[in-house]
């Protein structure tokens, strides 16, 4: 086991705030998911009644829980990962770590693993909350695996980038601010950039887009929706609307289709598989493209961060001794 990761794991629950935070985390998530249950049930009742509406409660809550986890990652992870290296530097313990036999990559991956492990532990703590949609029904295990895979990738991306910022920052404050800024840019600025790109691409929205909206590919929300909603299905997206509906509509538009009222879908664009009506893909799945981008950025961030925590050369020690 990575010694950095091991040390972080031992120290994680020493603080006074760890346990109250865990309790708040469980109760907060529980309350939000319970509210989602109320909203989903009411929406189902208003449509075709409680019994049919029940089928859409599970997907609604699952999509809501996925968004909740995404928000949890976005809100918690940058703050944790951003202090990991710069914090050592401020406490003047980084040099001690650097002179151990650990390679720079081990230091960085150890710090990243510790941050991701804690996030994973928090997710495990709210398992009863997240399992509710599975118990209610209407959620496939494939959707759950897709969501966990993409959430893991997004968490790794945010963690790696935050650690890179941490490694090159001189103060904790700068590192934390930089990490949150970059994460929020990824989540909220990319849709605005994509709107601008679409504006140019579609001649001021006069015609449908015919090429990829590249600026939207790194967006975690759309990547998550794409991973869960793959393969794109015309029915079974959770009834009258779920937190994923805007994303699914975008993905359908990306494929040149739509389930909006009055917008038909050409018969040759529909494939039937196990009785489900799927959209025949005309482009690579968006989550694959996003995943490749994430993997590239993760590798680059770890590499760059490792360079910042590289053990100083012996010549540097020599010069200092001379002085």
């Amino acid at each position: 086991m990575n010694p950095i990761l091991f040390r972080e794991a031992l120290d994680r629950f020493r603080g006074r705030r760890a346990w109250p935070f865990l309790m708040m985390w469980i109760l907060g998530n529980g309350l939000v998911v319970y509210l989602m249950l109320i909203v989903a049930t009411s929406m189902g009742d208003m449509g075709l009644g409680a019994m049919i509406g029940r089928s859409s409660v599970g997907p609604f809550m699952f999509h809501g829980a996925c968004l909740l986890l995404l928000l949890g990652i976005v809100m918690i992870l940058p703050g944790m990962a951003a202090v990991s290296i710069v914090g050592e530097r401020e406490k003047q313990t980084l040099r001690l770590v650097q002179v151990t036999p650990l390679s720079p990559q081990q230091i960085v991956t150890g710090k990243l693993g510790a941050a991701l492990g804690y996030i994973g532990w928090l997710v495990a703590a709210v398992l009863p909350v997240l399992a509710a949609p599975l118990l209610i029904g209407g959620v496939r295990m494939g959707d759950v695996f897709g969501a966990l895979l993409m959430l893991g990738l997004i968490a790794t991306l945010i963690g790696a980038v935050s650690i890179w910022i941490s490694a090159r920052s001189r103060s904790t404050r700068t590192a934390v601010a930089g990490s949150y800024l970059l994460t929020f840019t990824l989540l909220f600025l990319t849709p605005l950039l994509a709107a601008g790109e679409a504006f140019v691409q579609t001649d001021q929205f006069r015609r449908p887009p015919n090429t990829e909206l590249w600026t939207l590919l790194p967006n975690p929300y759309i990547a998550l929706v794409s991973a869960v909603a793959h393969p794109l299905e015309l029915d079974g997206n959770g009834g009258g609307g779920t937190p994923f509906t805007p994303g699914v509509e975008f993905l359908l538009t990306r494929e040149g289709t739509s389930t909006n009222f009055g917008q038909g879908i050409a018969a040759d664009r529909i494939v039937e598989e196990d009785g489900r009506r799927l959209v025949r893909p005309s482009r690579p799945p968006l989550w694959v493209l996003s995943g490749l981008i994430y993997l590239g950025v993760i590798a680059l961030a770890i590499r760059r961060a490792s360079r910042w925590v590289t053990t100083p050369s012996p010549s540097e020690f020599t010069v200092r001794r001379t002085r």
Partner: protein
Amino acid sequence: MLNRLCLATVVLLALATPVHAQTTQTSIEIEATIGLDGWIDDSRPVPVEVTIRSELLFAGTLELKSGASIVTVAVEVPAGGEKTYQIMVSPTITDALITIGLVPAGLEESVSTLRVQPRRAVDSVLIGTLGVEGIDLPTRTVIGEVPIVEVPIDDVTVGIGALDYLVIGGGVVVTDELLQWVAGGGRLVMSSGAIAAVDLGGGTVVDEVNGIRFDLGRGEVVAVDDLTSPDAAWSRTLQPVRSMASVSDPWSSAEVQMLRAASSSVPGALVSPAILIGLAVYAAVVAPVNLIVLKRMQRRELAWITVPVLGVVTVLVFAIVGVLRPQPSQFAHAALMVGSLERAEIRSVVVAATTAERSHHLSVVPSLSLYPAATGDALGLGVSAANRRVMSSSELTLEFREAGYGTAGVIGPAPTLPRLSLTTTDGVPIVSVENVSEFALIAYGVVDGPFVSVAPGGLEPGAIGSVEVNADNFGQASDVVSQVHQNQNSARWWQVYGSLTSAAQDQVGDHYFFAFIDSLPLQVEIDGRPQEISGPGMIVIPLTGTELDDGLASPQIVAASPDSLVSGEGPWRWMEGEWAILRFEVPVDREIELENNEEMFGGGAIAMEGWDWEAASFALLEVGEVDEVRFVDGDGQMLVRVLPQGDNEFNMMQFNIASLNATWDSGS
């Protein structure tokens, strides 16, 4: 050697399979007819007749697809033979193109497909002809110049609900089914000579001046001297009759409204405070209790293991105890029982909801028919709907691919309904109700155009009650009933009984007796086990405005300019278009006044023209007293054409049909 033999066998089999598929493809023919030569009746299950001819033995599945709605039937056709399969489907399946395909057993792809598009006579008068030769029908009605479409038919048992008129020759036997069609609103035209041989039972002669006309339920039988004569009074006989009230929006159809009522009758039990209590207990165990234990053990780092383990254990406890797990499969139904001349009919929609992939086999007694009801994207829902496999006219299987819902329609003779009698006391119509049915009526009353009258309280089986019909309360049945039962859960009342009321209006028009039943049992077999599904029910028995004689008649739209739009329910309809023809049913022996309450209903300024029966043309009609001699025909029919004042078309919100009324002195 053995390996080579196996390989050769595999290669031969692989080569043989496509050849067989190819042969099958070229040797199979399918033919399909929907409704009556493609014309369908929106208010009833639609018959689809598929004939399969095959040179080779064919065994497989016949698939009917319309959007997400899939209906399948197992088929087997002998070599060189042909077979015809008749399937009843929901009218909502016919909103789009229907793809009919044949899938051989063991394959997934269809070897032969056919696409059919159902037709609706929205802007025309549909006239069926049977056993009449040399008939010379006009191309348009004189009133309103609505196009006339002639549909020659050879069988009155299939799909005649789509017709507005049926003209029959002297050799055609008038069966009970035909009379039932008339009683439900059909118009039967036959020669005067032939009509003498027909037992019209409850029919009453309403007009002997313009040829003999018999009122029979909501329809009529018209006698014409000579059907083939060019001088036949077709211009007088054939009128625009199709009520624009007929709904083309699948969401508003009777079947979907009943589906909603059935689904809403099951209260949503998912939201429970027990969930919050469970979570609070879990949070307390995982955080403080866990902390205290680990602190005493001086092994806080074990929280990495204890917290996930506690999480998994709690999920298992939730799953076993069932805090969040709904029943794996749930069934409900809602029924509408429509009283008719002699035979009442029950129409019910059964809804099943499951939490996972499974299938359920449903069957009903042979006197009832079971068919695939509304589902899928006809409703614009993204909820997964079950495929339906039709086994026979009383059996089908709901095949759920995942959590979702499935529907089945039930239609057949209804049990005994309450008996009604109409009297008038001091000029006030009173409907006496003798509850000879086996059901307790939780509320009952009479809808009379835009007004509703409700009897106080319910009516137990065997009891006698009465409803005083007055014009005190605007509204529909469900509005007033929910007010009467304020202590009930009103939202649920509205969803259940409001939906049933909407379904009833589509079936019986604007004047009817209604009664609600809280728990109507439906005997079905589910997966071979007899079960009783309970659900809400509504009894409706149509009445006519003149029967009630309360001094007020609200109109029905019988024709409108092409591309007109009508929205709303019952008499509460908004109109958009160039013109519309409205029909009022009024007494023939009273002074009639026309009222326009456009200020009360928010309608815009309109011009009116009345059909002058003597001059056979429209003439200017003013609000106020109506010249009955000119504008009211022998059977109390008054036709009014409404037009915009000036050159502009109506806008939505500018014309409300409920703002126009014909009134007379009823003596009350």
